[in-house]
């Protein structure tokens, strides 16, 4: 029963809604920041591959498709780091504040 009482207390906690909406917004941004470049890349590869044929420099044989692939992997990984940073700091602190004085 204690969980139910605590749950009701949290539901009415002023900072709880704030936590939920802040986290939701942050997650939505990160999901978009991952999926939009990914599907753009796939769609360009599918419908306009010539856009990837641009060389890195006049003397280079490497086209921009390869480094873009690398940048995507590294970038998405950095996003996971960004998420951890904010979740471990801000969101965990907010959760601790909400749970303070908890019954269970």
């Amino acid at each position, binding site marked *: 029963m204690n969980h139910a009482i605590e749950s009701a207390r949290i*539901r009415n906690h002023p900072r*709880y809604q704030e936590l939920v909406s802040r986290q939701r917004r942050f997650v939505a941004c990160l999901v978009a920041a*991952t999926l939009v470049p990914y599907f753009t890349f796939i769609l360009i590869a599918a419908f306009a591959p010539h856009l990837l044929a641009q060389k890195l420099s006049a003397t280079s044989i490497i086209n921009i498709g390869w480094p873009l692939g690398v940048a995507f992997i590294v970038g998405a990984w950095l996003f996971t780091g960004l998420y951890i940073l904010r979740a471990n700091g801000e969101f965990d602190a907010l959760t601790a504040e909400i749970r303070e004085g908890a019954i269970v």
Partner: protein
Amino acid sequence: MKPLFRVLIAPALLSAAATCASAAETLQAVEKQPLNITAIAMFLVFVLTTLGITYWAANKTKSMDDFYNAGGGITGFQNGLALAGDYMSAAALLGVTSMIFFNGFDGVLYSISFFVAWPLLLFLFAERIRNLGRITLSDIASFRLDQNRIRTLTAFGSLTVVCFYLVVQMVGAGQLIQLLFGLPYNYAVIAVGLLMAVYVTFGGMVATTWVQIIKAGLLLVGGTLLAVLALSKFGFSFEQLFKQAVAAHHDGELILLPSKLVADPLALISLSLGLVFGTAGLPHILMRFFTVPDARQARKSVFIATGFIGFFYLIVAVLGLAAIVIVGRDPAFYESGILGGKLIGGGNMPVMHLAKAVGGDLLLGFISAVAFATILAVVSGLTMAGTSAISHDLYVMVFKKGRAEAKDERRVSRIASVGIGIVAVVLGILFKDQNIAFLVALTFGVAASVNFPILALSMYWKGLTTRGALIGGIAGLVSSVSLVILSPAVWVKVLGNPEAIFPFDYPAIISMNVAFFFTWLGSVTDRSGEAMLERERFDDQLIRAQTGLGASQAVNH
């Protein structure tokens, strides 16, 4: 020479987008090779080490929680490595390098499609799954929905995925062992079935986790070593690597751009949907989030896993390009010494030949042993997932209504893991020499169209009801399975019809939408009293998901 090349490779690699994808996941038919003593010796060391760990783990495994989730006592870093170990299959090492070897840039598209699921798993799933569940992913969907019906459905969803994926891995193991060790196919299948049953039955999740960790470490070390040695042949210059690869490949500069994989863009999109969302519905991956003490460690483990998996795919690209130059220009790796003819051992061999070329028999033996260890680790994870679906979901929660004796549960879990081992061996032998590409499509299709929608909607959509989840889950199952049957991989290649009724090998583009639509329809039209209660319980579920209130704790020993 070119027509010959086309005749030999075309059926497996060059026809359509989805065929490329399946070729990367399933190994093509191979011929038995001479006995490779170095590889066998190294593999035996791996087996003995893991059996030692299993013995140690068996002594640590006292409660059922220990058995299912290592008592939540795995650290975030360890779990990150184990997740990477679960995901980096032999198919990725052999198949994706071979794809780059033959088709160049297509391999990059394939790699990032496999990779992109991981950041999403972190943002959307990892913490919530950890906070809401304890043992299986069915725990989450049945948190506020009807225990019996939803748990039965999701347990069967998990078992279906586990079963299809096991057959893929067993057949791969049999072919690999013929190829790399020079031993008969059936030996491999029986040995793999036996070892995975031993790991899981005696060592439970602790042993499974350490098998994954060791394998991930070996794969990363082996791959990095191979990449460094290969790059040294190009003076560590990527410019040189690309220049020589273009010069060595018969397609020249075309290999730097998308080619075969994008011949049918819709097929490519269906494939990528299946890979991205199918990964987010693989039970053996998701259950790993229960092995860490809390949501914070669950987060960390995905960050670690994403880093290693990303790094691994970058290495794979280097290996594929280096193989174009080093293997592609050496007649010793082609049958009868004909350059551009048939590769000795088949289309999945470029990375193995590369190992031999840059590191001799010792490195070849090492990489072969790693490839086999990789399969062993993946099947152990699958067996663990299947076992907990049977003993926890079906036996304890559905059959015994949550009131089972621990010793009965333990006995059922032993029967389940041994049973899964036997089924896997029998199916592995039955499917020998069969075209099993469609099983990969089925695995990811069912995971993306049954497990993923139910899981995602139960955590993110208040309106979901039991009826909606049942209707949607069954619609997803029926549509994904029937579309795969109507696809080129089964309708044409297995059943021998002239033309496929459904044009793509991967069904996700249709079946995922069908699943989501019917789940929505079944939920919004549900006006029953239970449905009201289920929607009401969402708020409490969200509080638990968000704050960890009431989430299962780590067991202290």
